């Protein structure tokens, strides 16, 4: 290996080391890494709305204009400086970008991650670099079920809650329920949603339920003609789907044009993001979920009213659940710092954050799962109705956090199959 072959490598490193120097001086700011999808198919429905919510809430925290009981300017008295990173590129790329944020940009903490794959890859790196990290949107329960982390929090409940509550809702509200069918995207989110939904229903109805067909189209396929026909050939009383974003729009448009939505009772466990764009295509009676008490299901509160009006005023569309998730995460982080007191070390903030209860834009959030690191909130479903063009909901049922979230230390899949012991539903 001739010596000159090493020259280019050392050249590259010198350039990189040079840039490190500039980022050290500005220490009095609170640097907050924010990782969401800024490109690709998930950027439209999730990434950008979440970024907008972050901008809105960060500006409000910096100016101290958030409604009571949140007080003080900035986090830990320091003005927040957001540093955005695009979540594209897969888990390997994101672990590299995480290290860049901590090491190169010198962030104080990171809020991020929509994709479940990233939510599994990042925590071990957060532990290694001892950096406070708040997961704001990914739904897989495996994060705190397969490992316990000191520096990682998740400020919203897992996606299992959506499907357990969905099973309870249709079990209670659909009379003579005999058969169900499903169409879910062919990746972890879709498989887990369908599994939790069907297993819970089997438990609730002690096995008396028939699955006519279960479809798993490719993620972002966009063309669901064959799947819609399959759902029509083997009709069922309820059609379950955990579609989100652009796929929901495509499914609704193609299903509506063929009358699938009128003839069948459909339940969209994450349908709230499609309300603003496709409201008029969803017939009355469609069951909609918003992955928690968000959007139209958010309970009345000064914070929620502020968030709804400010977001709509600044970005033109009302906030959907990814925006609520991000706001909940940033506010939770701020409150943890306030509770820990001035100049608190990361470890002190962690102690404050563990088992903390706070009021987010979507109501009460209690961090009482995953040894105090995983939030549990209530879940809400309702049936769509339209009065003079305005979207409204009837038959709204709210399920308490302890009714639809597995208790502390339980593995979701086993908890459901064991008959959901300890579920406290009024």
């Amino acid at each position, binding site marked *: 290996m001739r010596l000159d072959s090493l020259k280019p490598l050392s050249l590259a490193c010198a350039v990189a080391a040079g840039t490190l120097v500039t980022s050290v001086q500005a220490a009095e700011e609170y640097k907050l890494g924010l990782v969401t999808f800024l490109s690709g198919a998930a950027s439209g429905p999730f990434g950008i709305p979440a970024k907008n919510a972050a901008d809105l809430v960060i500006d409000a925290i910096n100016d101290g204009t958030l409604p009571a009981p949140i007080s003080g300017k900035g986090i830990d008295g320091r003005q927040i400086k957001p540093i955005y990173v695009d979540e594209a590129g897969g888990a*390997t790329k994101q672990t590299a970008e995480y290290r860049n944020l901590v090491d190169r940009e010198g962030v104080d903490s990171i809020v991020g991650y929509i994709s479940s794959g990233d939510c599994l890859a990042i925590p071990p790196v957060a532990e290694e670099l001892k950096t406070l990290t708040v997961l704001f949107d990914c739904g897989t329960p495996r994060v705190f079920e397969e490992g316990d982390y000191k520096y990682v929090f998740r400020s919203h409940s897992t996606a299992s809650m959506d499907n357990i509550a969905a099973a309870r809702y249709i079990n209670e509200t659909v009379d003579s329920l005999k058969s169900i069918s499903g169409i879910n995207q062919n990746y972890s989110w879709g498989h887990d949603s369908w599994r939790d939904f069907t297993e819970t229903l089997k438990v609730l109805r002690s096995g008396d339920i028939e699955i006519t067909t279960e479809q798993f189209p490719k993620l972002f396929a966009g063309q669901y003609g064959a799947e819609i026909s399959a759902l029509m050939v083997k009709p069922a009383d309820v059609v379950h789907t955990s579609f989100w974003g652009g796929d929901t729009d495509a499914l609704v448009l193609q299903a509506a044009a063929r009358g699938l939505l009128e003839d069948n009772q459909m339940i969209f466990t994450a349908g709230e993001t499609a309300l603003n764009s496709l409201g008029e295509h969803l017939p009355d009676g469609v069951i909609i979920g918003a992955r928690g008490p968000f959007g139209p299901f958010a309970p009345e509160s000064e914070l929620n009213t502020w968030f709804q009006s400010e977001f709509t005023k600044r970005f033109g569309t009302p906030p959907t659940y990814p925006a609520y998730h991000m706001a909940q995460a940033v506010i939770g982080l701020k409150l943890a710092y306030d509770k820990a007191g001035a100049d608190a070390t990361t470890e002190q903030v962690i102690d404050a954050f563990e088992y903390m209860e706070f009021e987010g834009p979507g109501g009460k959030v209690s961090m009482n799962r995953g040894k105090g690191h995983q939030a549990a909130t209530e879940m809400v479903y309702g049936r769509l109705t339209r009065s003079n063009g305005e979207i409204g909901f009837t038959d709204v049922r709210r399920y308490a956090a302890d009714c639809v979230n597995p208790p502390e230390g339980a593995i979701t899949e086993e908890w459901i199959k064991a008959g959901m012991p300890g579920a406290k539903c009024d």
Partner: protein
Amino acid sequence: MQTKSILLLIGGALGLFVLGLLVPEWLSYLMIIAMGKGIVVLGVVLLMRAGLVSFGQGLYYCIGAYVAGTLTQFAGISDVLLILLASIAASVLVAALVGLLLCRYRGIFFAMFSMAFSMILYGLLVRSSVLGSTDGFNVLRPSLLGWVPSDDASSDLVLAVAVVMVMILGSLMWLYFRSLSGYAGEAVRENEIRVEYLGTSVFRIIYTKYLIAAALAGIGGTVTALVSGHVDPEMAYWTTSGEFVFIALMGGTSHVAAPMVGAGLFELLRTYAFAIAPYTWQMILGSTLLLIIIFLPSGLWSLVSRFSRQARG
């Protein structure tokens, strides 16, 4: 001459290792990722010199990574040497089967067919909920002959493994490219009929090169899995294989170090493109590739060899 270049080699390895320790954490992490990818691209370059462009090296890259994942996570084996051996064995085994069919094709058909195979593996992994489907699963800390490093030391272990692998494989391939069987690849690219009429089986030449490239991709996958601590089916997706070809073209195919340099600069370029333009980093990558293809058809390495030639006068 032999002892001088071996000393040079060991010196280079130590230098790279120390460099990895000195530079800030994020850069040494990036170096390991680049070395992992560089090893895979070395295999891509090996095939390119025989006139074949594989759009499916992600298949073996993913196999190598998943072997590391399954051994540490499910089989409780964390010894890095065992993992590397297992990943080479798995990659070569699959390549032995796939190669029987694939090595009969050339040009666009080889590219498309190799992509089809890697997409089939992608589909299999997405279907298997045991392996975590698209979320994948985490890879635990590796160990070396019983020594289990503490948390900080484990990334140094992976750095050492990556550096040693790069040096060993780099020098082996350097010898290979200079050797007769190295040139046999170029002969096949130039004129298969002449090679056949020289009494040698063209298929056997391509087949052995395909196996070597698969082993390299497997090792690259294992190194990347150990350093990033996570594996998912995305590693077998066609865009990942496309990235390897991107790096091979960017670096150039005329020297063993070209893929390493290409991978290093690619990672740096992408990281800074992410930071500078979170919204338009793809545009930066695309234009860079275009400029390289137009103005530096034989890759960045041609710059280096031009300087060194001038330097030598």
